[in-house]
């Protein structure tokens, strides 16, 4: 009999390392590069988001220049330049030419970026579609040189491949300029680069942005406030937000020598008493060495955490836009008759602080008989895709807008001349995928969004009632003034009383009846 090859050995032959480029090609959609049009806007977005994060980090008013040069029908060069802190020489290759390398992933602080994936995936996309290197110029201070790099990603090893490394003159104190060539498609309108930049300008009123589009047309989005947004603070993770893998990693990385001190020092809101309680519930000796804790014990630990009452994390670490600045942002980019904004107090989901803000622009240029335009934002970044999958959209649809002066059919966005802005700020925004397009449906988040919408709805309806009512009121009085001579004429025909006399008496009566007319709302006979 012939000897059978064990199945496992067959399978073993099929095992091989997956290169990042292969992974990327298969999962482009997860990262926002599903099609050429989206690839172009995602690239701009990743670069601008990083620039905004970087300037915020050093408390400086951002000056950003975005240029999209069109080489032919499908080929573009995107350049984004900022006045941020710059990047130290050694880090430049890794940041731009190594996937999953970043400073924000382990930081519990509100930032636009969080995965260490954004800019390097844009570089990789450009490289895969054009073969061209990414060009980076960065300078960290006036008396330091500017570094110029041409980089490629070694897609087998996921390591940077330095093509060129030079020192150049750059008449700028500090900042970073990134140039990526890619295959793309430029189109205006919904979900376009232009729209992304406009919305970015709304929620970043302190930003001065210059944009040169593929048609070589230069647009300016001027700064309307010199007030910097409140700086977000880094906080330690809260025990409720931690997952098994992360907890295991934290136990390995910690400097603490006992489990109790690990819990106390590496998390927020864990007192000695709470730490002891967790250890006791988990059945683990509180003086155990964190690195020695076995996997099953970590599971017990996680369970014990869930069962222990721990106060919510501090929420003053967030950086909301604020009611006043949201208002300024809306006013500068949207022409409407009425604007209002609401910033909710911070709240917590799964141990992560978050905060909801919302704003409305009503009337003016906004179309009357269409569904409202919903602008979604997460950590001040516009979310342009996957509207229907987003918790924000769900919350808007499930709000009873009829109570707030708009019409709405079941399961749909309301109808009316409204642009509605909803912003979620959080130290960790729960996206439904890596492309950061839609907010996951956490009940705590949905609840807060709804409360925010109700708050703003009440402000809207006050305006609508007053505005529309006062207009209707005037029309009403007008109408009676027109009816009175007609009635006087008919009555004089019917009774032979003097028309003018009846008319003047009716006019006096109108003045007297006016308050009642205002109060009534068209009662039936």
């Amino acid at each position, binding site marked *: 009999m012939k000897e059978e090859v064990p199945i496992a050995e067959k399978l073993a032959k099929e095992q091989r390392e997956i290169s990042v480029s292969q992974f990327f090609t298969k999962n482009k959609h997860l990262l926002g590069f599903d099609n050429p049009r989206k690839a172009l806007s995602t690239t701009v977005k990743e670069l601008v988001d990083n620039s905004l994060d970087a300037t915020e980090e050093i408390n400086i008013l951002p000056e950003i220049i975005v240029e999209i040069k069109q080489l032919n029908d499908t080929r573009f060069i995107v350049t984004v330049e900022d006045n941020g802190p710059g990047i130290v020489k050694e880090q430049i290759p890794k940041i731009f030419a190594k996937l999953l390398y970043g400073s924000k992933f382990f930081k519990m602080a509100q930032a636009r970026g969080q995965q260490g994936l954004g800019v390097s995936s844009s570089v990789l996309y450009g490289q895969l579609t054009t073969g061209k290197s990414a060009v980076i110029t960065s300078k960290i201070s006036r008396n330091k040189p500017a570094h110029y790099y041409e980089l490629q990603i070694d897609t087998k090893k996921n390591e940077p491949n330095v093509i060129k490394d030079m020192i150049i003159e750059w008449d700028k104190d500090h900042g970073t300029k990134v140039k990526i060539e890619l295959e793309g498609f430029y189109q205006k309108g919904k979900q376009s680069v232009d729209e992304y930049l406009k919305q970015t300008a709304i929620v970043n009123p302190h930003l001065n942005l210059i944009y040169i589009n593929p048609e070589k047309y230069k647009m300016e989005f001027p700064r309307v406030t010199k007030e910097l947004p409140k700086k977000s603070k880094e906080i330690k993770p809260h025990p409720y937000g931690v997952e098994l893998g992360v907890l295991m990693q934290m136990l390995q990385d910690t400097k603490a020598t006992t489990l109790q001190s690990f819990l106390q020092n590496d998390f927020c809101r864990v007192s000695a008493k709470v730490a002891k309680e967790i250890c006791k519930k988990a059945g683990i000796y509180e003086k155990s060495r964190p690195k020695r804790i076995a996997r099953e014990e970590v599971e017990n630990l996680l369970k014990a955490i869930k069962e222990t009452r721990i106060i919510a994390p501090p929420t003053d670490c967030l950086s909301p836009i604020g009611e006043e600045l949201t208002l300024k942002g809306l006013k500068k980019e949207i022409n409407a008759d009425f604007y209002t904004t609401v910033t909710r107090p911070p709240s917590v989901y799964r141990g992560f602080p978050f905060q909801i803000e919302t704003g409305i622009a009503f009337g003016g240029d906004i179309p009357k008989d269409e569904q409202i335009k919903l602008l979604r934002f997460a950590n001040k970044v516009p979310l342009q895709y996957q509207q229907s999958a987003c918790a924000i959209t769900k919350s808007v649809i499930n709000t009873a807008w009829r109570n707030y002066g708009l019409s709405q059919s079941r399961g749909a966005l309301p109808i009316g001349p409204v642009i509605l802005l909803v912003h979620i700020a959080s130290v960790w925004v729960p996206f439904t995928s890596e492309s950061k397009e839609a907010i996951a449906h956490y009940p705590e988040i949905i609840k807060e969004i709804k409360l925010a919408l109700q708050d703003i709805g009440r402000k809207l309806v006050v305006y609508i009632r007053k505005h529309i009512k006062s207009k209707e009121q005037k029309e009403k009085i007008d109408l009676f003034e027109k009816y009175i001579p007609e009635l006087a004429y008919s009555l004089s025909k019917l009774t032979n009383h003097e028309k003018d006399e009846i008319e003047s008496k009716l006019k006096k*009566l109108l003045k007297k009846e006016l308050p009642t007319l205002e109060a*009534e709302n068209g009662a039936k006979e």
Partner: protein
Amino acid sequence: MVQKNKQIDKLRELGEKVIKDIDRNKNPSITIPIRALSNVIFNEKTKTIELGNKNALRYFFNVAHSKKFLQTVEIASILKKELLETDKHEHLRGVFYIAKRTIHGTNVNIVDEQTESDKVIEDLEVITGLSREQLHVSANKMGSMVGNIVLIDSGDSIDCSKLGKGGYSVPSITDELVFKKINAKYVLYMEKAAVFERLNEDKFWIKNNCILVTSQGQTTRGIRIWGIHIFCC
């Protein structure tokens, strides 16, 4: 002419009541019996259905009422001034055309659709307790009649057996017709004019000694009143 005065007085009364409200500095109102199932009573004695005594008030200074109020007064004045006082009759459609005009300084018409003026005329019937015909508003449609019957219509004697294919045109107001001679066993009424014409062609009424009547569609008030009269004599 005594009769007409009563109608004119009733309409004027309505106007005077409104004037009184105005003089008393009150929101002028008109009282209208409610024409709804909830306000209908069966009168055992006369075996007829009558309106009960529930009323609604129509106010001038009320956004929902004001236009109807104006229509009511305007149409009342039309009936009084242009029909009763000059002893003329008008159809519903005619009244609608007289009332239809644009309110000065607006693009609003006193009435836009005939149904509006028709409704107001019905209102005026119940307000005054007088029928439309008494108010000189005639029904729109008339009917035809053939048979062994002689009538007096406005002094003319008409023999309905000698009027050829078309027969006698039943006027919209039949209250004042006088039956001079009837020699028929029964009346055969039909809505469809085509059937009437066919039976008349076949001389059905001669063979069966009856009177044929049609209203060319839904029974008009003129025919109904005529029916009551012929039934009674």
